[in-house]
Structures are given as C-alpha cells and as structure tokens.
C-alpha cells in the first residue's frame, strides 16, 4: 500500500482555512446586515456565530488533514486500483482497469505550488463512481496515467 505525498496535508490545511475564512466573512456580513437584534429573548453580541465557525474551522483545519492523511492509502495492482480512505465513514474501493472510461489529471494552484496532482478515474457507474486519488507526486501521477491509458478497455459496460 502506498501513502499520499505528505505535502497534501499542507494543501488540505490551506484549503480548509480559506474556506473557513470565506464562511466566517459571509456569516459576519449576514449577521451584521440582516439578523442584528432579532435573536428574541437571548442577546448575543454581533458576530458570535461567525466567531464560533472560525474557531471550529481552525480546529478542523489542524486535525482533519492529519487524520485524513493517516487513513488514506492506495495500491496499484495488476488488474485494479485499490483505495482505502475515510475518518468517520471508512470506504474501500476497488476499480478494475477494464472499467475505466477516461482519466483526468487535475492540478489546482496550490497543487502546482507543491508539485502534486490529483488523478481522477471515470467509470460508467451511477452513484459517485468516479475514483479520485489526490496528492500524488506529479511525475508519479503522469506515469500512472500513461500506464493506465494502455490497460483501459473500450468495452466496459
């Protein structure tokens, strides 16, 4: 079983913090503009909700990437790819090469800064059946993509 590139932890943390800031600002604006003074019997100072979100968000951004990294692992086998992931709900996925329709290599700005990439394997399945492996070293991901390109089959239904 292989682990992901450790720099994915940093990417996840930054992503989480950015998201937290976004929701904090949105909530604060909403709090300030619309909800002000309409708490009924209970008086909270403006910005309580956004403050709580900020605290929870920061705690999460510290803990979540560590745990997610710990439980994420994958294996490239002879006929299939095998993933294990999940903090609360643990999922093991098996995707045979013969069922892969097409392959994407995605890189966000952060990914590019840390020289990692996300590999997405699309299948014809129905319920969220696309197999995603984030945080692979770029060279490795490109190599894997090229290797998989040869083994995927046309007749997959």
């Amino acid at each position: 079983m292989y682990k992901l590139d450790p720099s994915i932890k940093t990417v996840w943390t930054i992503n989480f913090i950015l998201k937290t800031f976004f929701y904090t600002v949105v909530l604060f604006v909403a709090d300030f503009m619309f909800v002000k003074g309409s708490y009924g019997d209970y008086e909270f100072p403006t910005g309580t909700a956004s403050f709580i979100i900020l605290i929870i968000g920061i705690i999460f951004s510290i803990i979540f990437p560590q745990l997610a990294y710990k439980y994420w692992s994958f294996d490239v086998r002879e006929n299939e790819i095998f993933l294990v992931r999940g903090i609360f709900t643990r999922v093991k996925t098996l995707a045979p090469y013969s069922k892969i329709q097409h392959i994407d290599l995605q890189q966000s700005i952060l990914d590019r800064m840390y020289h990692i990439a996300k590999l997405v394997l699309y299948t014809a399945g129905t319920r969220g059946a696309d197999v995603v492996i984030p945080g692979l070293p770029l060279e490795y991901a490109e190599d894997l993509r090229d290797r998989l390109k040869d083994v995927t089959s046309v007749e997959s239904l």
Partner: protein
Amino acid sequence: MSGIVNKFSEERSLHPLTLVYNGIKSSPPLLISLYLAFVQNDKSEWMYSIILIILFFGILPSIILNFIYFKFKITDKEIYIQSGIIAKKNRVIPISKVQNVNFSQNFFQKLLGISRVQIETAGDISAEGVLEFVSVANADEISKIIKYYQSNVDVLGINPTLIEKEHRIDSADGKLFSMNLKDIFIYGALRFRPVFLFFGFWLYSFLQQFSFFNLYFEDVFTSNMKNLQDLNVFYLTLLVTLSIIAIFFISWILDIIWTINTFYGFNLINEKNKLITSGGLLSKQTQTIPFKKIQQISIVTNFLKEHLDYYSLRFYTAGFGLKAKGNDIAVPNAKLQLIYEVIDKIKQYRIPKYFLSISKKSIKRVFIRYLVLLIIFSIVLQYFSVYFWFLLLFSPFLYYFAFLNWKFRGYLFIDNTLYIKYGVIIRKINIIPIKKFQTLKIRETFFQRRLGLATLILDTAAVTLSAETLIRYIDIDVAEKLFDEISENFNKQFNSAE
C-alpha cells in the same frame, strides 16, 4: 421487389398528415386566442387580436415550413436527416451504429395512421434520429431496410423478400411472454398506485355536482347545518366514510382502465441480440432492450402480491436513448414459475431458494435509526404543541419492523452472479452478473464500525438509483471475504474473455 429498398434511397419528405397532426397539436392556444378575440372581446382589448395575429402568422407557417424543409434518406451506409428553416441541421447516422429502431403512436397519431420513428444509436444521445411522422407502412419498411443493410452490408444483390421472411420468423419464434385481457385486469387491480387517488378524488368531486348518489346525505347535511345543536354525528361519519370508499373505488377503477390502456396486447419478444416489448390500446409503444446494455435483472413483488404468487420482471439498463429511464418492465405480472422460465430463456440464472442472511446486529442498528427519526419527528410535533409521548408507544412496532427488515434481507454469490434480496413492503430480488460492476466498495460508517458491520456496494452503470446493488449490514470479515471473492472471480472471468 427491390422497390422497397430503393424507396428511401432518394430524399423524401415526411407523411403529409404530419401537417394535420401538428396543426391539431398547436391548436389549443390558437383556439383559446380565437375565443378570446371574438367572443370575449371588448373593443378595448385589442391585445388578444394581436396575440391571435402573431399566433396565426407564426405557428402555421412554421409548421408548414418545418415540413417542407425536413428531408430524410436512407442509403446502404448512412441515414441522412436534414431539418431546420433558418438554422439548418444535417444529421448523418451510420447504419452500422444504429442500435435499434423504435416506433410509437399516440391516440391521434393512430387515428391518422402515422407513426413516430426513433432511431437509437449506441450510447451517444446527441446522435439520435427522430422522424415525426411517417405512415405506419413506411415505418415498418424503414426498420426492415435498416435491418437488411445491417445484415448484408457488403452484399450487392438486393432481395427484400429475404428480409420479410427473416423478420416474420424472428417475431414468431422469439415470443417469450404475452398477456391476455384477464392477466392485464388482474395486474391493474393489484397495482394501487397512489397517484390515482388524486385522479379519483378529482373525478369524485367532479361527479358530485350531479348529485346522483348523495342527494340524501346532502339533505341530511344541510338540515343539520341549520341546526348545529343536534348535528347528527352518525350520518356525518357515514357520509365521510362513504365518500372515502367511493374515492378509493373510483381511483382503483381508473388504475385498472389505465393499466389496460398501457399494456393491452403486451408482448415480450426475443430477437437476436435484444428484447422487444410492445403493447398499448389507445397509444402503442415499442421498447427495445439490447442484451449488452442490461446491467441488472430484478424480480419485484409486494407483500400482497407475494401471497397471490404474482411477480414482475424488470431490467435495468445502462443509459442510452432519449428516455434514459433505465428501467424497463419486461414482464408486468406473472406467476413466479413463468418468470423463472422467461429468465431461463434469456440467460441461465438459477435463482436460489435460500439466501444467506445478514448480521442480526442490524436489527439493533435499524431500530435505533428508526427511533432517532421518531424522536426527532416527535420533538418537531411537540413544538407545534401536540403530545409526543404518545408517539413513542409505537417503538415496539419499530422494533418489529426492524426485525422484518432483517428477515427479508439476504444475499448469495454463486456462478459469478450476485443475488440480493430485500424489502418488507416492496420485495425485490436483484440479479447482478459481477462482470457488470464498475467499482466495488466496502463502506463502514462510524456507527456500523462500532457494531463490526459493513456495507458492500457494487456500483453498476444502471441509470436509476433505485437499482439497489448493495448488501447492507453484514459482518466486516464476511464483507471482506466477499470483496476478495468477487474481485478474484471478476479478474478470472475478464481475463479468460480476452
């Protein structure tokens, strides 16, 4: 005889009655505006006249021009369809890519003797061809010609008699299942679709204005209204009860009538690589299910039908075509033995008599889940000041339901096929050939992990989510063993096929 084949090699227009049909189809707004313009019109309301003029000079020419500019031809290699007045559209469908040719007719189309032809190709929705409309005879010829070209692409000598012969033999030999009127009546009587309650209610309230059957009760009701003091509770209850019974009865009858309309003369035909269903009284429908697209087969029944030994057979297919319903009824209603026979003729699945049961711990898990839902529901009710403690009396029933849920779940993996059984009220047996799965998953949620349970998910390309291809609540080690077994068998099967 080569006339039939050559008939479509020149550019052709649609059937002239298309004009009449499209005219009828777009007439309601025209008639309404006519009515408004001439009958209801105060002199001031000139708006209607303008709308009328726009409609009249907009719709009619567009119908005629669309008809004039629509051309199609079928050669031995391709089907050309040309349409569009201002924005021209040319569509070329290679004959070899055509999966099947479907016809449909609704009531008006049937009266006019025209038919809608839909040429479906593999997978790609954008490359579909629809001919609206050609005559029924032409539709039949088109399907024959396409079939002919597909079977003899490089043979030069054309002999259409051969096609006709072949076609006839096909449809006579391959009949797998058909329904007579009695079967359809029974099917309709057992469906109890809730939607029809709405129609029943509507018809009932419509009939009430004629007061055939409730004159007496209305009398009682009005006299009581005058004197609320001694309102006769008995008659009032009787009136309400009778109304409800009447509504149920009417919707039941409507359901039967509608079922007969949909399934009249239902046939399931086995052609070379596909199944074809057809049926319908006022509007006829033909559906094609290519074998290759079948992802899953389901035997469906409910607790009532199971007592009467009635089951239905459905196929879940990978998405294709415009309908993309992904779920086709192959046998609407039949005894279990007959269903087995049909399945046996299509592909040899031996449907097991006994299934392995899931973990008994699931009863606890499901019960807690129901209980939490009930408590949340009760608290919401409490908020609206309804006593909610009373609802908690139902919890033993929930436990019983959780027990039933466990009892009716089962699975078995033999002969490269996974059989999954589930459902308390609606009962299903899903048959999934394992070479059809796209991804295989084991999912353990937080609560499941605490009980040592897991869910095994076989994701297929069936379009609908109702194609439940998962085994819930099995022990984690069992799930893992099954996971390995399935993947091993899958690899064996796939490698031997190549």
